[in-house]
């Protein structure tokens, strides 16, 4: 099960709406081993595409160095689908390389003014398992937003 606080959930949804019709992507980092997504880090989609996302290569290095320095890991890796359901595509599955992460998919296919789908999956060795999402009022510390 993914447990995520309301503000972080809303920040992911807002990012997906903002970048629609391109795919939005990012991570929520948390203390290593904690399974607590605490630090919201929206990333630039270097592909700037409605059908593909990829973290920019130098941003990716900076992100991992930053997480290392903080003893964090990517607890959530999120991206949006803007014309299809919030379910991992074959490409998503083939490229998923963080077996410990919760892969969150958001779909804005019904439009940015409509409710969005928000679902979470484990992807390990190309096996996809959907999991329950529990949105809780908060867990400390407060969401730290970063400018793209």
């Amino acid at each position, binding site marked *: 099960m993914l447990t995520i606080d309301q503000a972080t959930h809303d920040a992911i949804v807002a990012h997906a709406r903002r970048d629609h019709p391109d795919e939005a992507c990012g991570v929520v980092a948390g203390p290593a081993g904690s399974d607590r997504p605490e630090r919201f880090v929206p990333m630039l989609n270097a592909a700037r595409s409605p059908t593909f996302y990829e973290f920019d290569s130098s941003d990716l290095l900076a992100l991992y160095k930053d997480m290392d320095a903080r003893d964090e890991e990517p607890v959530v890796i999120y991206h949006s689908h803007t014309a299809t359901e919030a379910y991992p595509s074959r*490409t998503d599955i083939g490229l998923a390389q963080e077996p410990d992460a919760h892969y969150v998919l958001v779909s804005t296919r019904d439009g940015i003014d409509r409710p969005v789908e928000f679902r979470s999956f484990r992807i390990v060795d190309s096996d996809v398992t959907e999991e329950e999402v529990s949105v809780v009022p908060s867990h400390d510390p407060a969401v730290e937003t970063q400018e793209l």
Partner: protein
Amino acid sequence: MAIEVRVPTILRTYTGGEKAVSAAGASLSEVIDHLETNHPGIKGRLIEGEDLRRFVNVYVNDEDVRFTGGLGTRVADGDAVVILPAVAGGR
């Protein structure tokens, strides 16, 4: 001195769980061959045919090797190599 190679979570099965291992070589290609001798199987996860896999990023001293000569990128003792899987996908 040697070359430090940072290994991502998904490849630590090849390094006995180690986050960083040391290697030697004058080019990235030689470093990967050296890694393979100590950690058999890791090379195939980094290289496909004659080139780095499209969705594996390798950095030498914080520079993405795609911009510094790929597998031919020169390395020297004391350099830091970081391997990171791309975070990517698509519908």
